[in-house]
């Protein structure tokens, strides 16, 4: 107790030096701890999401891009496939096929066009409002609703695909039909619309005044039987309302509509194997991936990077230990006369050593506790960091 008191008084009197030592230890321990916790959280999240998604179909190309897009709605989607490809998959009768079109965003939050089957597949339920019912409706993920301050009945505009392309897709005002329950996944940070609404956002479907009865002659270039050609002055509706919903239509066949990816949920392993076998040929327009395998491959790459990081941590820890040894050696040298006086007065050399050890232990424990506290805070913030990482 007395040694503890002396150790405390010494550290209190030399609080600057003590604070630097504590900070050194805390930072040295915190950095690898944080990286470890973050990677653990990251791996867990990826593995869970991937293993909960049996198969992903999409255009041939980077399997990493396609998987990340289908699981996390990355803002840079791979090449699109056609709705006809999705119908072909369905026609195999080897599982439920859920199309996704996640090419667009609203205030940088991905807008995911899909079908109601997606909500059943991901066990997503509506906590406020109602589910998708009309063209132009959206349901908002829990975190996205908090970030954008949205409640059912509000409206949000989609982002233009390219701000420099004035002739590109027009923003569409979406009506918030409902807010989803928190799921702890990427679905919390997305806005969901019906896939047809996604095609309207893409400009493939649109609504405008009836040119037979409502459009002025100024916008009509040519009338020929049922075929009417209008000029660019014809205004498209930027919001789908009960009044104008009937004016919305699509140019082109449904089979030609774009889909960025599809989730395939076979009823059993055999169906999955059969389906993958059928789409393995070079001629196949699609690739069918097992997200769990792709994520495992990505994590193996990540582990290699972590080995480099671990080596760096060992070097940093080594240099910190050397720094601590230097500081302790200098400190002992400075305290030489004090320790000598203690010995002269009747203090055992072991007691003096215990005093110094106690000080060192107190600094170490404080530094490690600080690192743990910072690590715990990081774990709390990990979902946000994870989101930031997966959104880039």
């Amino acid at each position, binding site marked *: 107790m007395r040694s503890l*008191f002396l150790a405390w008084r*010494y550290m209190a009197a030399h609080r600057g030096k003590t604070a630097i030592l504590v900070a050194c230890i805390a930072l040295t321990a915190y950095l690898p701890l944080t990286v470890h916790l973050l990677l653990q959280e990251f791996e867990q999240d990826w593995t869970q999401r991937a293993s909960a998604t049996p198969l992903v179909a999409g255009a041939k190309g980077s399997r990493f891009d396609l998987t990340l897009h289908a699981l996390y709605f990355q803002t840079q989607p791979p090449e699109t496939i056609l709705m006809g490809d999705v119908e072909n998959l369905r026609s195999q009768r080897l599982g439920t096929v859920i199309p996704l079109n996640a090419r667009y965003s609203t205030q940088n939050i991905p807008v995911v066009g899909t079908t109601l089957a997606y909500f059943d597949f991901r066990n997503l339920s509506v906590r406020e409002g109602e589910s998708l019912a009309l063209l132009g409706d959206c349901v908002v993920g829990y975190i996205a609703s908090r970030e954008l301050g949205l409640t059912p009945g509000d409206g949000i505009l989609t982002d233009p695909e390219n701000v420099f392309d004035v002739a590109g897709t027009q923003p569409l005002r979406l009506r918030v039909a409902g807010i989803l329950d928190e799921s702890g996944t990427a679905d919390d940070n997305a806005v969901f619309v019906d896939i047809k609404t996604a095609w309207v956002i893409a400009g493939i479907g649109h609504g405008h005044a009836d040119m037979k009865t409502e459009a002025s002659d100024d916008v009509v270039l040519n009338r020929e039987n049922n075929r009417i050609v209008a000029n660019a002055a014809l205004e498209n509706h930027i919001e789908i309302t009960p009044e104008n919903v009937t004016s919305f239509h699509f140019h082109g066949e449904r089979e030609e509509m774009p889909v960025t990816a599809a989730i395939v949920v076979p009823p059993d392993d055999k169906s999955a194997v059969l389906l993958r076998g059928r789409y393995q040929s070079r001629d196949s327009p699609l690739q069918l991936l097992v997200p769990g395998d792709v994520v495992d491959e990505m994590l193996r790459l990540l582990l290699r990077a972590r080995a480099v990081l671990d080596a760096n941590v060992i070097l940093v820890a080594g240099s910190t230990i050397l720094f601590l040894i230097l500081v302790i050696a200098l400190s002992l040298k400075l305290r030489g006369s*004090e320790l000598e*006086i*203690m*010995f*002269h007065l*009747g*203090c055992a050399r072991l007691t003096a050593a215990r005093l110094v050890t106690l000080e060192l232990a107190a600094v170490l424990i404080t530094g490690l506790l600080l690192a743990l506290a910072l690590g715990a805070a990081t774990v709390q913030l990990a979902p946000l960091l994870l989101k930031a990482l997966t959104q880039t």
Partner: protein
Amino acid sequence: MPSPENGASIRIENLRFVYDQSGFELAIDELELGSGSRLAVTGPSGCGKTTFLRLVAGIHVPAKGTVRVGHQELSRMNEAARRRFRISTVGFVFQDFELIDYLNAHENILFPYYINSALVLDANVRRRASELANRMGIADKLRRSVTRLSQGERQRVAICRALIAKPCILLCDEPTGNLDPENKSLIIDMLFENAAETGATVVCVTHDHELLPRFEQIMDFPSLRTTE
């Protein structure tokens, strides 16, 4: 252990002590100091005055001969026993005060109690510390860091520390060496006054010949030292 109230006699016989590295040798054939007496040790620098104090304190062990304090023969004790002897029997006052700069004046006075469990720190000891400080005129400075005290005040704190465990012998190594003439006289008076109260034997190394008349015995060291 000798009774503090009676002080302790010091008896040295046929003492030989050699520093291995320097070849310095100290030889004392016979020295006897009565309990409660005051001995001044003088001599030029490097003649072995401090070594003598360390031999009496049991910090050094002679190569030959005996050092007896009271009924205890230090040369027969092991290190742990000599440490216990020091903490309970010897009070030290140093020229440079040797206070612990991260403790305040009160904590410095109690310092012997912090470093050896042979001494029990209780309310009586704390009260005694306050009384000693009061007697030394530093009662109002007990909570102050020793780095913020004057030289005279610091030496008073050092004397309080030396006296707190009621030692049988007080070993002082040039206790007035760093003090001005006014403080010098005051400090030596306080030292003797408080030592007399417990009957402690005082051995004081000094270069100051003005102080010698205050001692009962004077030992001049050049005659005791031999150098190869």
